[in-house]
């Protein structure tokens, strides 16, 4: 009978009954949403899945980079895992958060019952979920290419977590201080520069004396540390872990201080 406008809702539908959901449920919901947004975004997938996979396959099978003695995949797989962490925790997170800030998403969430710390927790969990998917995919590809990993998985896990913290801090710092377009450009540029100059596919020794400075970059510390463990079977590389920890403290500290929500 009523064709155009919907019937008015019955009395009492909107009677106030306010209240926040339990914080655990809010974090779970926010994590699920953030992860869906990330996996639905084509540009993000290019960065986080397609580029690392292609680099791994390409340079493992075509001999264009001198990766030293041993199978190329044993050199490349740890570097590409480090790249995957950077692509998600730094580049992807910076771009996504930058545009969320630009489009008022962070502002609107700020007026919801979700506390800020819970939003940041959800963002971190969403990054970790994505990284688990990346690591599973890249490990599968690497194993198919004949990768034989060594070392203690716990050392690998610790390095990945420290790397995630370091890159998240830098990504959020960029997203919270620059305009969204500037973040988009800068995050991609940094990704490209660190891909080339961070020991991901090109060994740092190729850069001569500059290699010693480049070794202090978070991407270099992460790929070098992962390589020490996974390729060389070394015990925990504390030097690289320390470099990552310092970046994490500086990045997260600066992000906490300078992040602007609007």
């Amino acid at each position, binding site marked *: 009978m009523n064709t*155009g*406008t*919907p019937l*008015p*809702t019955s*009395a*009492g*539908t*909107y*009677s*106030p*009954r*306010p*209240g*926040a*959901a*339990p914080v655990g*449920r*809010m974090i779970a*919901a*926010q994590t699920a*949403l953030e992860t*869906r*947004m990330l996996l*639905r*975004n084509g540009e993000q997938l290019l960065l986080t899945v397609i580029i690392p996979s292609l680099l791994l396959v390409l340079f493992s099978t075509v001999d264009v980079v001198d990766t030293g003695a041993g199978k190329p995949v044993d050199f490349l797989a740890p570097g590409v895992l480090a790249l995957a962490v950077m692509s998600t925790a730094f580049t992807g997170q910076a771009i996504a958060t930058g*545009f*969320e800030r630009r*489009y*008022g*998403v962070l*502002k*609107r969430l*700020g*007026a*919801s*019952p*979700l*506390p800020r710390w819970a939003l940041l927790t959800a963002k971190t969990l969403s990054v970790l979920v994505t990284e688990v998917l990346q690591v599973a995919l890249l490990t599968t590809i690497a194993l198919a290419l004949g990768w034989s990993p060594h070392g203690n998985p716990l050392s690998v896990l610790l390095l990945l977590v420290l790397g995630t913290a370091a890159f998240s801090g830098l990504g959020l710092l960029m997203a919270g201080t620059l305009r969204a377009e500037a973040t988009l450009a800068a995050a991609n540029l940094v990704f490209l520069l660190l891909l080339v100059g961070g020991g991901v596919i090109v060994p740092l020794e190729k850069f001569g004396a500059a290699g010693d400075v480049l070794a202090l970059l978070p991407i270099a510390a992460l790929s070098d540390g992962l390589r020490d463990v996974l390729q060389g079977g070394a015990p925990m590389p504390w030097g690289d872990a320390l470099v990552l920890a310092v970046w994490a403290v500086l990045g997260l500290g600066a992000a906490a201080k300078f992040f602007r929500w*609007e």
Partner: protein
Amino acid sequence: MNSTTLRDPRPEDPRALSRLPDMREESVVQVRGLVKRYGDKTAVDGLDLDVRAGTVTAVLGPNGAGKTTTIETCEGYRRPDGGTVRVLGLDPVADAAALRPRIGVMLQSGGVYSGARAGEMLRHTAKLHAHPLDVDALIERLGLGSCGRTTYRRLSGGQQQRLALAMAVVGRPELVFLDEPTAGLDPQARRATWDLVRELRADGVTTVLTTHFMQEAEELADDVAIVDAGRIAVQGSPEELCRGGAENTLRFTGRPGLDLGSLLKALPDGTAAAETLPGTYRITGDVDPQLLATVTSWCAQNGVMPDGISVERHTLEDVFLELTGKELRP
């Protein structure tokens, strides 16, 4: 100026009768002497505002008058540089954690992930609340059923506005702040939004909205606060504002040369009467039903048939322009 018959601009919703009368006297938003500066620009300059529980309050004002700054201070986004703000008895900044679950917020624009689908975003917002509304019913109610799977960036401006409105009410708040809720809506969507605000009011939800549309304020608001240059120029019901200050006009035609002196004696002080053209009469003053009755009975006594009798009441727009000036704002 608008020629209308005398009417109540806001027909009462029958469901409103169930509301407790004393509840409406409580002040749920109390702003006293609010000052907010951005650099050397003073956006809000000693503003006072009261919002009674269960009412709809419209904050009107030209661009840059300080409407959004005021609303966003009440929402806890801005820290006042001076004065006090209490919302539901709480300090919006210091007590943010306690306040936020109780209020609904619709920003002037944005607020949604550009890649999120309309239904997905509303469902997510519902999950942040303990007792949310039925999401599907709300989607249908606001005519968003056809775009539940459309991502936000592909929605029309009107659909984006309605989604933001839905997000503001889905948590069953006590108090909603709507910043220009009908900007950019077509007339049908505007009506749907007005209906929703009326239903919120009938169910006891307090609404504070900003608008540029005088008609919107006249249709919806129990109270109108006109803001200009960072202060409240005037606050009151639409009827009070239209009656106060500006004069209203009653016109009729009859035979020429009527003795207006005898009419004026019967009318209250401050009323003026003139024959503007032969047989065309204009009475200006506080035109209320009593005055209309006095004029028609005077006509009857004098054997005059008042043809084309019309009452021109000042609209809010007249009041608004009178208070804030007619020149364009930068």
